[in-house]
């Protein structure tokens, strides 16, 4: 617990490679204090950093450190569980765990029940719009017309409802939260609402509340987070660049951006997706609707496990190029978007996170 307090005082942020290096050191301290094997520490630190980067654009600056700490702790705990089972079954020739697969039908029933209960916790209006969109396939534009609203507002509402549904679903599968603070904190994390996280001091709560610490992880789980207001494209070949920028533009339009702004977003997506193809060969680009208080925007995250960028400052200078291009990819994307963070670890990979807010 004391390790976590330190983080908050440092006001850890992921604004650049320095912030990440600091955080990595902290994560290492947390993990090394609990795990003996050097390799296991390395593995857990890496996995923590990877998850942190995936979630960081949805976290308030002050919640980044605490989230890193609880994620590391969660991973250590699951490592112990695995090691424990591994030991007990080490003498067997086959892994019996595969054979005792849970009763799938029962599992499905439980999940369906949880989803139903979670839906009940939404307001009738939230539920109605969410179901119309998800189940009946209504698009945001037609819903907006019907609700006398804008596609952007509907998209933002859907995003909030989905965030709420995720929280309620997880609570349903677990138990009622121990404190009154838990639900709002989990909701702010799920929605990626940084302003609310800061108001609630979500970081402090995560460190103090084991319940929320445990739930914060599945909350950021990629599958749980996958939704129609999220575009996720594996990027490997030229053609993927075209696909991801087109889908990025569609999402931006859906979120209420003007055609001019959507074109800027699509252009920025195109540039960073090309960097993946050129330098890392393989990676992933996600585009999500972002909310911060009343503001709606679009966040683009490009991730690869390529060679990394040794000198980020230089890579951000216009004209710096390593493949005979015009060196406008990164600096140009930064100009096209409102927020731009690049984190790169040589030999490990690069993550570019950029956001544009609607005016």
């Amino acid at each position, binding site marked *: 617990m004391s390790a976590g307090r330190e983080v908050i005082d440092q006001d850890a942020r992921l604004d650049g490679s320095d912030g990440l290096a600091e955080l990595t050191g902290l994560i290492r301290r947390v993990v090394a204090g609990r795990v003996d094997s050097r390799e296991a520490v390395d593995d857990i630190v890496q996995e923590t950093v990877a998850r942190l980067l995936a979630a960081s654009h949805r976290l308030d600056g002050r919640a980044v450190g605490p989230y890193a700490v609880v994620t590391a702790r969660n991973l250590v705990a699951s490592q112990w569980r695995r090691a424990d089972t591994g030991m007990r079954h080490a003498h067997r020739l086959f892994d019996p765990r595969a054979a005792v697969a849970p009763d799938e039908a029962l599992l499905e029933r439980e999940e369906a029940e949880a989803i139903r209960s979670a839906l009940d916790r939404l307001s*009738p*209006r939230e539920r109605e719009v969410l179901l119309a969109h998800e189940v009946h396939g209504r698009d945001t534009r037609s819903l907006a017309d019907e*609700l*006398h*609203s*804008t596609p952007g507002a509907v998209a933002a509402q859907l995003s909030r409802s989905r965030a709420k549904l995720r929280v309620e679903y997880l609570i349903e599968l677990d138990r009622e939260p121990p404190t009154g603070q838990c639900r709002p904190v989990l909701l702010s994390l799920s929605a990626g609402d940084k302003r609310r996280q800061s108001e609630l001091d979500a970081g402090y709560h995560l460190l103090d509340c084991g319940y929320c610490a445990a739930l914060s992880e599945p909350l950021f789980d990629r599958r749980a987070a996958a939704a129609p207001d999220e575009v996720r494209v594996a990027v490997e070949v030229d053609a993927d660049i075209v696909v991801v920028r087109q889908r990025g533009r569609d999402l931006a339009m859906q979120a209420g951006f*003007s055609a*001019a702004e959507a074109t800027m977003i699509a252009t920025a997506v195109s540039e960073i997706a090309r960097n993946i193809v050129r330098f890392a060969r393989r990676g992933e680009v996600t585009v999500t609707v972002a909310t911060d208080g009343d503001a709606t925007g679009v966040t683009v995250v490009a991730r690869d496990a390529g060679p990394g960028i040794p000198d980020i400052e230089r890579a951000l200078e216009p004209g710096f190029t390593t493949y005979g291009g015009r060196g406008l990819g990164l600096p140009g994307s930064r100009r096209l978007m409102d927020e731009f963070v690049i984190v790169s670890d040589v030999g490990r990979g690069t993550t570019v996170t950029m956001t544009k807010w609607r*005016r």
Partner: protein
Amino acid sequence: MAEPELDDESELDDVERAAPRDDHRLLPALVAHLREHRTELREEWERRIETTHLLQAMTPHEVGSETTSVYDNYVEVLETGSVDALQRYARDLSERIIPRGVETHEVVGIVLLLRDVLARSLFLKYHDDFDVLNRVLDAYEPAANRIANTVAVSFVEERERIIRQQQDAIRELSTPVLQVRERLLILPIIGVLDSQRATQLTDQLLRGIRLNRARVVVIDITGVPDIDTTVANHIVETVDASRLMGASVIITGLSPEIARTLVTIGVDLSKMNTIGDLQGGIEEAERQLGFHVTRSEDS
């Protein structure tokens, strides 16, 4: 609770007076009661609206006709459980009264008043049998809150929509793109340019170029007192984007202050076609258009 203002001694038939014992019969009985006493309950509600000084922007006649509709819609929601019709009506009502300056708290206020007027009437009707009263109120309260919520949300949304519309209209007006002759556009910018307006302006100009198939654009910034570097950059970007679309840009009315700002941010003014005043700019534009018939202006 309150002084019995309501006349509940009116003649009721036996079915009505008999307390409904089955829960599924509660709401129908309740609805029948509210229908039967429609006139006096509505009048009571109007009196309350008046004494609380709500809806003062509306005439008593207008209030009367709206309260009748709201009352009927209200009862209909209780009966059918569907808020659709009420929602439609609430939006329609909002659209009518928002321009009159009716505020959100007033709309919410009158719906809550109606909720309470009806609750009191139910209280008086069933106060003999506490068990039934409880069940009636249990059935009534959630429905009534849902109604209040529906009306409030509809009103707020309608208000936001109207405000947005007005803002759009104002923005349209503040950056007119004028076509003075074929293929020549003039964009007079007047007033303070902020980032949002600058973006709007670019958007309109670039679309205007395509729509009017413009070859030359004169941007007159005589009416701009001052610009910051962000907006100055934006103007430069607009000039470059216009060129990419195939139109050349002449800037007129550049004050020494703005010229200095442009130079400070590294704009090469010799690459921008700047002319002293609008008249000179238009003449230059016409000269360019004349030349274009036979040869290109740049090579």
